[in-house]
């Protein structure tokens, strides 16, 4: 394997389930490359095929067609003992932890070491202690899973997944059953393991917040396909797909702020020379004194309505809601200039936006009724 070859390389993966009366194509011709040291987020709604796709990596799910290469090994060709050996190098954690209820915490972590590890009994115990220490649960060694909280259970599951010193950790909705505070502590732990052990992490989730806080790359999945992918910053600052925008919105609340703004009378009755816009920017483009330039160069007055800045991958990503007012075509010229600076401009027509909101609300209502 070449030094810079991806640690996980999926090529043209298709997974089809045959049921009695129909066939379901859960994953459709997906290519995915994960580099060593990545924390790769895969987001999508439930049923998008995320879990099926990641199970192809350790072959818990065999692909119908396509090629799976992990650490240079062609996984599809492995069977029996060779496959089980390869799996020991791919840790996995789950939404519902999947700990063994009748074994203590220590024995749960010990479990992978009982399956053919060549360590001595003493070394195995030492390894278990070291792992429990790593996840901060040393004092729970002799407790049973039923005595632990969800976050603690997931920590045990992480320790178990790391018992065989894997190079890859697959996280299948591992934080979805946890509260926000516990979620962020588990995510911090994953990030920490990534940095400390050089662990490559593949993280599936439906929460963009989780992706935002630790991933460096992200793929968005819908109906078995990856509809958009890239590094975190690009996806967040310049999403191209509607679904991606939806996911980003769930974590940034820009639309919620906009909905508030358009409800205000002063915004509903904008003058002809006034314009409601949202500027989105990432990284270097935020260094220039853009707002000051608007007035100095174009005599355009910006009225700031709301704004937020987040730090993703040590780079600021911001959104700014403004009303711009200026003489003649000054506003248009100013916006053209802003676009040249690498800032994404979204012009909003208040009437259209309100109609859009009303339509969405009606949709949500019918959905609720459908569920009830």
């Amino acid at each position, binding site marked *: 394997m070449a030094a810079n070859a991806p640690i996980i390389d999926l090529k043209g993966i298709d997974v089809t389930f045959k049921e009695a009366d129909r066939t379901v194509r859960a994953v459709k011709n997906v290519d995915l490359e994960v580099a060593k040291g990545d924390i790769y987020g895969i987001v999508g709604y439930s049923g998008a095929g995320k879990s099926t796709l990641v199970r192809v990596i350790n072959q818990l799910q065999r692909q119908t067609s396509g090629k799976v290469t992990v650490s240079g090994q062609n996984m599809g060709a492995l069977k029996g003992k060779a496959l089980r050996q390869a799996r020991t190098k791919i840790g996995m954690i*789950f939404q519902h932890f*999947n*700990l063994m209820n009748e074994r203590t915490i220590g024995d749960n972590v010990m*479990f992978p070491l009982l399956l053919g590890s060549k360590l001595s009994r003493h070394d195995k115990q030492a390894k278990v202690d070291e792992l429990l220490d790593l996840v901060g649960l040393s004092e729970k060694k002799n407790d049973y899973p039923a005595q632990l909280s969800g976050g603690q259970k997931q920590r045990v599951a992480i320790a*178990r997944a790391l018992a065989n010193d894997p190079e890859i950790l697959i996280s299948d909705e591992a934080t979805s059953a946890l509260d926000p505070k516990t979620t962020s502590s588990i995510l911090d732990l994953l990030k920490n393991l990534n940095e400390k052990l050089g662990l490559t992490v593949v993280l599936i989730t439906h929460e963009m917040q989780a992706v935002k806080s630790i991933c460096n790359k992200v793929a968005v999945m819908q109906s078995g396909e990856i509809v958009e992918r890239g590094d975190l910053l690009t996806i967040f600052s310049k999403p191209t797909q509607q679904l991606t925008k939806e996911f980003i919105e769930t974590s940034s609340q820009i639309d919620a702020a906009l909905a508030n703004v358009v409800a205000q009378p002063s915004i509903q009755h904008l003058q002809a020379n006034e314009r409601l816009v949202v500027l989105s920017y990432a990284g270097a483009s935020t260094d220039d004194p853009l707002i000051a330039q608007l007035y100095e160069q174009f005599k355009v007055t910006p009225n700031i309505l709301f704004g937020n800045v987040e730090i993703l991958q040590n780079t600021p990503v911001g959104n700014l809601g403004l009303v711009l007012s200026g003489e003649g075509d000054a506003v248009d010229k100013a916006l053209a200039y802003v676009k040249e600076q690498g800032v994404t401009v979204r012009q909003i027509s208040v009437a259209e936006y309100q109609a859009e909101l009303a339509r969405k609300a009606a949709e949500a209502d019918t959905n609720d009724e459908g569920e009830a």
Partner: protein
Amino acid sequence: MTTILATDFWTSIMPNVVANKDVFIQSTWETIYMTLVSGIIAGILGIIIGIALVVTAPGGILANRTTYWILDKLVNIFRSIPFIILLAVIAPFTRLLVGTSIGTTAALVPLTIGTAPFYARQVQNALVDVDRGIIEAAEAVGASPMQIIFRVYLREALPDLIRTSVVTVISLIGLTAMAGAIGGGGLGNTAISIGYDRFENDITIMAMIIILAIVFIIQILGDLWARKTDHR
């Protein structure tokens, strides 16, 4: 105290029991012998068949449609045959196996065949209750099918297995009462062929009391053990 322990007292309320003390001691042993031996053999068979049903079922770790179908149907058929008929029907097979078709040892064969499928179903139900996610987690760390069976399925289902074993043993004791039909002896036989047929009601009642005592002891010990192993 002295009056309760005195032979006079027992002779006055259960005259026939006292007269037939040796019969009771022997038939109690016969019941225990039949329960124990057929219980152990049926237990082993039932666990093997139960495991086989779970792992070969669709979606199981060794899914195999044909094996599952055959086992499933066999279990259903043998569970459906009334025990008293089974005793008679398999008599030739019993003779082939133990050399005779009457007597306590001969009763072991139908008792085993009558119990194993019942127990297999109970084992299957206990194992199926092990969370699929736990099995998947074991597969993900590289456990082999044998390791999953012994270190995950049987271990995780242990409290349920103990409980279902108790149910099975108790129903097996019930079956031993019918073994008298082929000369198997035991407490059931004593209750009917001595107590009932000769109108010696105290014998019937005493046989019942001893069987109840055995059942209660097994139930209590089983419950204690199951509770001790259960950490859910």
